[in-house]
């Protein structure tokens, strides 16, 4: 067993990337994700990778595009306003079927907002964000350890599906320090066979990477191919954690850092004899809608808790299909729902 290391979430994310064989990172400073950029600057130097502090978020995502074109495992990160700037590049990555990992350590918005934790970028991450019909695999870690693990797995998922993978974190998880175990996962080989990558056409026909498809019907065919891929991802990659979902009157649904508070509220409620459970989606897309749908008619109420005005709650309602009541409690602008606030809401619903 390797000893545990005390790291903040942003650093754990960086180490997860390094362990996964990430050899390219480009990023631009923005709070509250700066520890990640600084960590990648230091670690990529140590492992012989490439770090670039780019002139903008636009440049960063497009440098990642180039690194991915050339076959590297590549990552960029930012926080909410910077992620907005990257959306065009993310759409191109999907259109060109290029793997990449993008991390959003969310802060309060809209606009410049503040630098406190938020979950108000859920729609942007899960429903598209950029132009065109596309999906990202969206992972939502809830602890510093899971931030590392999600980042590590994100590179495999990205390569497997040739699609960008998005990690939706927040300022709380990015800044918070917790012990992290690196032992369970070893270093990866840095070269993965990517016959589509641009390496120079020696010994083969030239490769072309493009998303511009002007021929009659060609773009629709390309979109059908992408949609089939998204369907495969939806069938295979849903992840969620659940507690007491078989015998609860109220099931809380929360993701990311606020799921920790929701879990504490659930435990407190249970200790008081209240039948409360919890579903914590780990993949926000694909969303664990089947898990929710299957228990929808046996559950009296769902209570969705978010650090937003209510975004994931719409996906819960779609999954529940009107079979039971869906309620919501959220805080905005960087405020965090407390255990007591959630308890009060539970008590009001029972």
């Amino acid at each position, binding site marked *: 067993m390797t000893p545990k290391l005390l790291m903040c979430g942003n650093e754990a994310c960086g180490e997860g990337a390094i362990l996964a064989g990430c*050899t*390219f990172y*480009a990023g631009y400073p923005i709070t509250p994700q700066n520890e990640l950029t600084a960590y990648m600057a230091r670690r990529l130097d140590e492992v012989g990778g*490439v770090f*670039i502090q*780019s*002139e*903008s978020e*636009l*440049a*960063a995502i*497009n*440098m*990642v*595009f*180039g*690194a*991915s*074109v*050339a*076959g*590297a495992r*590549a990552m960029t990160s930012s926080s909410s306003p910077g992620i907005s700037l990257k959306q*065009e*590049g993310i759409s*191109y990555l999907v259109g*060109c079927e290029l793997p990449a990992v993008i991390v959003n350590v969310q802060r309060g918005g809209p606009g410049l907002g503040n630098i406190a934790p938020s979950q108000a970028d859920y729609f942007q991450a899960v429903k598209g964000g950029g132009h065109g019909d596309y999906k990202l695999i969206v992972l939502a870690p809830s602890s510093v350890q899971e931030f590392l693990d999600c980042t590590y797995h994100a590179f495999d998922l990205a390569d497997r599906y040739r699609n960008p993978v998005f990690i939706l974190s927040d300022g709380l998880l990015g800044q918070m320090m917790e012990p992290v175990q690196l032992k369970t996962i070893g270093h990866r080989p840095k070269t993965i066979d990517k016959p589509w990558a*641009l*390496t*120079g*056409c*020696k*010994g083969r026909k*030239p*490769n*072309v*990477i*493009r*998303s*511009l498809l002007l021929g009659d019907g060609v773009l629709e065919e390309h979109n059908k191919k992408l949609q089939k891929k998204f369907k495969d991802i939806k069938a295979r990659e849903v992840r969620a954690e659940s507690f007491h979902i078989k015998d609860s009157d109220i099931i809380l649904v929360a993701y990311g850092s606020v799921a920790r508070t929701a879990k504490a509220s659930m435990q407190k409620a249970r200790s008081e004899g209240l039948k409360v459970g919890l579903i914590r989606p780990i993949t926000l897309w694909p969303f664990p809608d089947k898990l929710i749908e299957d228990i929808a008619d046996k559950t009296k109420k769902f209570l969705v808790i978010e650090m937003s005005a209510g975004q994931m709650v719409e996906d819960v309602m779609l999954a529940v299909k009107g079979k039971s009541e869906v309620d919501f409690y959220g805080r905005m602008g960087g405020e965090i729902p407390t255990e007591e606030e959630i308890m009060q809401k539970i008590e009001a619903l029972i």
Partner: protein
Amino acid sequence: MRRLIFSRPKSLRDVEMHYCAGCGHGIVHRLLCEAIDELGIRERTIGVAPVGCAVLAYDYWDFDVTEAAHGRTPAVATGIKRVRPENIVFSYQGDGDLAAIGTAEIIHTANRGENITVIFVNNGVYGMTGGQMAPTTLAGQKTDTTIAGRNLKRDGYPIKILEMLAVLPGVRYAERVSVHSAQETLRAKRAIKKAFKTQVDNIGFSIVEILSMCPIYWGMTAIQAAERIETEVATFYPIGVIKSY
């Protein structure tokens, strides 16, 4: 005995191009491909095609090519070159791509001294979208968005991007050429070849600006457009070496 003295470069595919009659892109494509062939680097070349009239360049070049978002061409080239320094990486950009929407990317890529080559085709107009004013459009020039001619008060000044870039220590070779005559085309070929040689020799960032004709959106015949470069365009954008090593 017959001897082959002229043929299509191997790097240039034998396909019909979409360029308008009298456009300079076809000439520039050929010069680029000749330079790549002559330096023997086709099999390790990776091109980055722009958004603009040359958006379909990957259909014409017979080596590895990727597209890039509008203006982000040098950032994409940076990512490729840093991952694969042994490859020869170039971006091919028009004046809208390089001198308007991608101004930050070209300046910072040049300033980092990335060992890439930039082929910058300046025809002073947005051709692909129907002839709007470009950052390089000359004062008084009529376009779709400057019907009475570019008004310096309303539209600002034409930008001399190569002169701006030349002050950056990261830029090792910058030359402005033209393809409006046979003589200038030969000179353009030499400049393009030197730019690639600069990269092959690991000297650093190289850029060639090529003044090119757009008869359609200049409202001229092909011959008039070539003459306009001689009499007007090259007067404002002087042809010659701007920086070398």
